[in-house]
């Protein structure tokens, strides 16, 4: 309804152009639609996997994983030699037999369930950034999630990846779509799941989200194949006059994205992975992402999530189980990337909206807290610990004080991995922590 947002009908033009170009390419016997395939030159050979091209980070891929609910950082990366930890967590402190001690010189150990991640750590393919948070921490799941997703302390606005992708297509203009300059093609990020995460949602570009490939196609053709062309005709027809920021136009764009990406994605994820993945939800998501990467899709950002970390009561068993799922899924994914020959192109970043309080509560659980570790995986990360572990005694209202701003991590990912200008995406400069070795 805000016509002034889009005086030249930019959305409508681009979408139409985009539809046309994809039709043209399809008729030229390309199987990958234009918005997924960035250029004919870069068209990969799916059978052999992608050989990485050194120094060309246009090919780099970022996987973002959210551990939803607020992961208890202190029982994930454990300050096991700290008396305060044991004193404030009389029943929840992880027992010494259940620790994975990484290095006798370091006072930190991993939760015993994280054997896969430990192996990656030993290979230098796991970076642990300690005490990641932001000023004036918000303890609401929703607000804090929004803050992480938008990279704005107010938790409002478009997603940080959404802004990055908008900028790729249209130039930098924080949260706004500019004029597409034609130098980049549009590749929406892909989220596995029912919800399109805010982090990936831009003004111009919305992510593609799907939960399972079998459901990712219109079923009307099962009633009559002959009506499929009418289905497309009717969708495109209503598109012609939609050029504003209305719900109507939003639905048109989504319908078009759905149709164009359906065939490609279904074909990609139908392939059997090169390695065996565990059966957990996160592992299934990462397996599909692995298959899409292997199929040579040009998507640069994928999103997955694992829920259940809101451990207010009887935390121990459930939290350990979640960490095992997390660790096993990551290990399988890294093996897959190596087997594909794509490992050097893929970096994975894992965060949670907040950590939990230092002291356990009366229900053998932990309440919402503040800073927590961020994990990054892949051959291109600088393995080991980064930043400082927050003090367990110098607290802010019973909570850890953050030692690294999450936007520093984003900034480095944007600048070094995505070849973007983080200052323009994030609206300010944040000092890199040298987590990426590129």
């Amino acid at each position, binding site marked *: 309804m805000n*016509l002034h947002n889009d005086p030249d009908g930019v959305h409508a033009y681009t979408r139409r152009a985009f539809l046309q170009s994809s039709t043209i390419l399809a008729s030229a016997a390309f199987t990958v639609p234009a918005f997924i395939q960035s250029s004919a030159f870069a068209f990969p050979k799916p059978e052999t996997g992608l050989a990485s091209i050194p120094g060309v980070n246009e090919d780099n891929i970022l996987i973002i994983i959210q551990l939803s609910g607020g992961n208890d950082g202190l029982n994930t990366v454990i300050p096991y030699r700290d008396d305060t930890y044991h004193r404030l967590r009389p029943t929840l402190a992880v027992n010494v037999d259940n620790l994975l001690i990484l290095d006798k010189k370091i006072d930190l150990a991993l939760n015993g369930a994280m054997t896969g991640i430990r192996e990656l750590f030993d290979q230098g393919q796991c970076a642990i950034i300690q005490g990641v948070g932001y000023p004036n921490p918000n303890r609401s799941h929703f607000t804090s999630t929004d803050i992480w997703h938008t990279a704005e302390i107010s938790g*409002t606005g478009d997603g940080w990846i959404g802004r990055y992708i908008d900028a790729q297509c249209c130039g930098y203009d924080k949260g706004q779509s500019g004029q597409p300059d034609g130098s980049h093609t549009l590749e929406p990020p892909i989220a596995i799941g029912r919800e399109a995460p805010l982090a990936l949602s831009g003004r111009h570009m919305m992510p593609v989200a799907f939960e399972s490939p079998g*459901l990712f196609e219109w*079923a009307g053709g099962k009633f009559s194949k*002959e009506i499929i062309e009418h289905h497309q005709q009717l969708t495109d027809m209503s598109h012609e006059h939609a050029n504003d920021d209305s*719900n109507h136009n*939003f639905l048109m764009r989504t319908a078009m994205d759905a149709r164009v990406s359906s065939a490609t994605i279904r074909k990609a994820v139908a392939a059997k992975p090169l390695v065996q993945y565990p059966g957990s939800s996160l592992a299934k998501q990462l397996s599909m992402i692995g298959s899409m990467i292997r199929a040579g899709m040009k998507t640069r950002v994928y999103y997955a999530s694992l829920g259940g970390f809101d451990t*207010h009561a009887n935390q121990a068993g459930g939290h350990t189980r979640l960490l095992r799922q997390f660790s096993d899924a990551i290990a399988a994914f890294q093996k897959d990337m190596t087997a594909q020959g794509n490992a050097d192109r893929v970096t994975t970043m894992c965060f949670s909206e907040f950590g939990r309080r230092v002291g356990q509560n*009366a229900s053998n659980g932990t309440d919402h807290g503040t800073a927590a570790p961020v994990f990054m995986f892949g051959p291109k990360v600088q393995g080991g610990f980064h930043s400082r572990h927050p003090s367990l005694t110098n607290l802010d209202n019973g909570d850890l004080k953050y030692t690294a701003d999450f936007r520093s991590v984003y900034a480095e990912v944007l600048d070094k991995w995505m070849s973007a200008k983080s200052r323009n995406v994030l609206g300010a400069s944040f000092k890199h922590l040298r987590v990426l070795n590129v």
Partner: protein
Amino acid sequence: MPGAHINSTQLSRIETSLLPIREKDFGYPQARHLLLRAGFGGTDEQIRTLARWGPKAAVDHLLDYTDIPAQADPPDAFDSNIIRPRSQAEQREIRRARQNGDEDTLARFRTMRQQAQRADRNQMRQIQRWWITRMIQTPRPFEEKMTLFWHGHFATSYRTIEDSYHMYAQNRMFRHYAIGNFADLLRGIIRDPAMLRYLNNNQNRKSSPNENLARELMELFSLGEGNYTERDIKDGAKALTGFTYQDDAFFYNKNNHDNTIKHILGVTGNLDADGFVNAILRSQACAPFICAKLYKFFVADIPTDVKALKGPTRTVVRKMSIMLQQHHYELKPILRRLFLSRHFYDPSVMGTKIKSPAELVVGSIRSLNAPPRNMSIIADAMDKMGQSVFMPPSVKGWDGGRSWINTSTLFVRQNTLVYLLTGRQANRNFVERTNYDPTGLVASMNDPRLDRNPPSELIANELLDLALGHRPAGAAQSLVEAAHKVDQPNTAKGITTMLTLITSMPEYQLC
């Protein structure tokens, strides 16, 4: 059909008046709109009837639903004892078994517990189907719409509480107070076993306060972020101490209650939970917050943060909140005023809101006379669309609006309609016997003057009026062509073809 389609010039002046719409301005599109928003849509015949009655009688019919007889649930509709606390004898037996290392006894209790949980999950699925069926069949659609509103507002999830009967009891409470007084709903929710368990208030004791319910009571249920302090939360939690439940009933454990002086939202004293609620109701932030939620649910997809509201929305929500305060939180007068208002029928409001999964599924079955088919498949489809009733994603409820729609859910939405209309599913080859008879769905098909042989384009256009509320240029022609490929446009198969196509259009997701 004039009126429903919006163009840019109409948008420049949005009607913000809460004065009643004029009789002459209330026609088919307006009656359709009213049925969609204050209910789950209507058939062509129902729309025509309400249009004939005019706005006042139409709104009265929907809102004064207690005049319409409805079947009450039998008291034993669901089993309240699947999940029950252990008896003292059982507790003794377990204690003894632990002391003696009697693993067999402990294993027997574990098995019993697992069996009960399995049975309870089963009952939860039954209750889900029961409610969706009720939404489809009720002669009082507004009652179910409001019950759905409160379920999303006071969101509680079975996934956390794992007691289906508590969820059912909470649903009945919402229905009971559906358009009563908001104060009663707040007093009801702090005594509701499902909510007390969901937000851990059963663990909120004087010796170890748990702030979860106190925080959400203000942040999500009544005031909104920024309208209270951390101190209000701490002292609010103290006021709520001792509010718990025993088996299926509320229980006030006064030994666990904190009797110290509290300062909550400017009120000081030895406040208990009701004192906390009263302090909330006195806050100037409460009425605007509730009205913004109602507006978002019934009128337009807006941000929940009252301070972020702009322009006409801000004006209307302000007017509504003044009225709600004047009526001491009585909800019905405000909703009646809203559904009669000129603002509610403004072109910027009509046909621009994204349907929730419940609105899409229940509304399609009601308005297209589609067979409900297999309720388990329907409930599962709603889950995939992001709205599993009794299992909202978080205490925040469903975000609604654009968050319903992404490439994944859009396919599920379209394919659920394909399933309802044709019995075919995306990922299965099995075809359910089609007993859908859409002949007679719209007026022209019933018009004796047309001798049951109305022009094909007229049928297509009337189907568009019913399903979309407007006629996109060229659509009727494409529909008729498609129908001819399958059968004749006036046969059950031909009409099913047209409806399958119309309901897969992006506009069908709007109401």
